[in-house]
């Protein structure tokens, strides 16, 4: 309903006798009565704070007699000690500077020892020549409001505490994740006499826990083993599988480094672990051995693969070819699995490149619908043929970065090559 301020009550309307009576009673309500019984406290003080006038409402709240207050007490005498301090350091200076101040939260003391939270607004009355004469104040009961504010404040503090705790937890978890992630991949590749090695790892998930893995490690004599693979899934579950896979392959290789044997052991372990769990898990993997011939500098590679994209061999003469391992099964799916084997020989300047399908299945093109694919990879690799493993990995890292958001899977790269000139063994100590 809209009311206009200038609307007059219509005395001729029926049933208006009651409202007339109310209106008359209101008119009889004197200014003095309004002042004394107003629903807020009124207070006037001299400039030094001495109370000159106070209304009945405020006296009632305080539990004081007028005679004990007027001319005898100062405004600050009504306040708690904390309120006095606040009055002197904030309220009074602001009032002096601005001539008015509004909505300041203070507490007044009651004679019984109780306290009432109030909101005080004050204004300075000036004389005709501008000199300050007295201070008028209104005092509002703020009990409900204060308890609500305290509740808000309490929740704000609780939220602040929770935020700090969450940040600490997050830092702790990230630290734990970093330690776990380091256990999935070698810190540094071992130096292989007569060979060079380089690797790159791209973790797709923000927690940096990946589902791809690789490793290179020494076997008996001068032989080395390597593997690279991809477990199904991403994130923590994939990382747990990766960990199991990595350490199973390392242990299996020490027992029998034959590539098919190593993958078969892994197959048995994964199958036993995950069959019947309701969450069948498997991986693809390439496992191989490196057998350098100290006389010729050539390195013989024996490898086996289960469900993994074929390795690439980059030759010193500038050509590149896939080393096909067709028909190998995913590792861990069936109790008895068949794995495909292949053999090649690396001469000086040749590099064996292993990768996961994050590379070949990176989405390219403007609308990110085409896949990079094995043909493009072969062409790219041919351009890199004859270069060192480090240079090949560096070029591929640049390629991956160029995919941008088209690269949405974990990607592992491992390059093992025979240098054109014999590599200096890192084991050789510098005479200095």
């Amino acid at each position: 309903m809209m009311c206009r301020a200038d609307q007059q009550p219509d005395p001729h309307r029926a049933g208006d006798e009651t409202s007339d009576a109310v209106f008359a009673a209101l008119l009889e309500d004197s200014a003095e009565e309004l002042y004394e019984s107003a629903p807020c406290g009124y207070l006037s003080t001299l400039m030094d704070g001495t109370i000159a006038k106070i209304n009945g409402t405020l006296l009632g709240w305080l539990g004081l007699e007028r005679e004990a207050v007027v001319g005898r007490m100062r405004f600050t005498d009504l306040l708690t000690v904390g309120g006095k301090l606040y009055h002197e350091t904030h309220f009074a200076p602001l009032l002096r500077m601005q001539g008015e101040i509004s909505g300041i939260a203070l507490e007044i003391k009651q004679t019984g020892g109780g306290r009432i939270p109030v909101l005080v607004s004050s204004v300075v009355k000036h004389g005709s020549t501008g000199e300050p004469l007295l201070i008028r104040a209104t005092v509002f009961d703020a009990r409900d409001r204060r308890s609500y504010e305290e509740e808000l404040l309490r929740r704000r503090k609780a939220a602040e505490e929770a935020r700090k705790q969450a940040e600490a937890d997050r830092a702790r978890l990230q630290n734990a994740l970093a330690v776990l992630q380091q256990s999935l991949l070698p810190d540094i590749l071992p130096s292989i006499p007569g060979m060079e090695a380089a690797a790159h790892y791209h973790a797709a998930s923000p927690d940096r826990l990946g589902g791809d893995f690789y490793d290179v490690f020494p076997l008996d004599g001068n032989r080395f083993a390597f593997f690279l693979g991809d477990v199904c899934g991403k994130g923590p579950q994939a990382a747990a599988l990766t960990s199991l896979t990595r350490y199973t392959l390392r242990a299996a290789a020490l027992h029998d480094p034959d590539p098919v044997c190593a993958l078969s052991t892994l197959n048995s372990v994964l199958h036993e672990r995950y069959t019947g769990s309701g969450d069948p898990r498997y991986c693809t993997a390439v496992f191989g051995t490196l057998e350098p011939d100290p006389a010729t500098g050539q390195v013989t590679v024996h490898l086996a693969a289960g469900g993994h994209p074929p390795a690439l061999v980059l030759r010193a003469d500038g050509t590149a070819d896939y080393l096909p391992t067709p028909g190998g099964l995913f590792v861990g799916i069936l109790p008895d699995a068949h794995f495909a084997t292949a053999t090649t020989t690396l001469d000086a300047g040749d590099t064996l490149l292993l990768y996961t399908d994050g590379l070949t299945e990176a989405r390219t093109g403007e609308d990110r619908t085409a896949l990079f694919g094995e043909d493009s990879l072969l062409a790219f690799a041919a351009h890199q043929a004859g270069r060192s493993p480090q240079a090949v990995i560096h070029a591929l890292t640049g390629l991956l970065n160029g995919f941008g958001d088209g690269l949405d899977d974990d990607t592992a790269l491992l390059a093992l090559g025979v240098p054109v000139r014999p590599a200096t063994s890192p084991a050789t100590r510098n005479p200095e």
Partner: protein
Amino acid sequence: MDIVRRNNVTVTGNPHGPSVVLAHGFGCDQNMWRLTVPALAEDYRVVMFDYVGSGRSDASAFSEDRYSSLDGYARDAVEVCDALDLRDAVFVGHSVSAMIGALAADAAPERIGALVMVAPSPRYVDDDGYRGGFGADDIDELLASLESNYLGWSAAMAPAIMGNAERPELGEELKNSFCATDPDMARVFARTTFLSDSREDLKRVRVPTLVLECTQDVIAPQGVGAFVHEAIPGSVLITLEASGHCPHLSAPAATNQALVEFLAGLR
């Protein structure tokens, strides 16, 4: 670091006159000296500043560690003197700033040649044989009052409050802003102020000192001014017929007269 900007230093008055530094106490900022400056401007170079965490200082320079002791605030005072290369300045400190001035004069005697202590108190909390006027519980109550009165402070408004010299119109809109500070910083200043004990520091004051006390001061009760006066050899005590803790606001004429006469006596 730009101290002039950090502490919102303002210099006014007679550029060729001796320097007088006006330092605000806990609560508001250098605007507290608004009624004092006109009495000094003709003869003195008047320097005012805001402590870090107050007024329009650079809040980003605040560190709870530094400002948890009065020494941290005294470093602000000395650094302001250093930045302006003041020599033999008169340091006028209100309330807790009186003690900060004593510390600063001790740390940089070449910078500060005299002290004026307006409504000083070397210790607010009662102690054996010493009446500061407050119990430790009272200080907690003040901290609670601070929490319920942000005086227009909010995170959103803080940048406007904390320094917008190039946009002075903002100051018009911000009622109460000159007493508005980040409540966390105000709490640190309150604790540092009201839980400090500078009684021993008074004994090291070696410069001419004027102590101004009020007859009716809720924060520094009668007797405290005399304590300060007796602790500082050669100091002058003047009791102003003024109520409240801010005689430079409530009794500016009497305060200015005492100040000007003391300054004249130094020349």
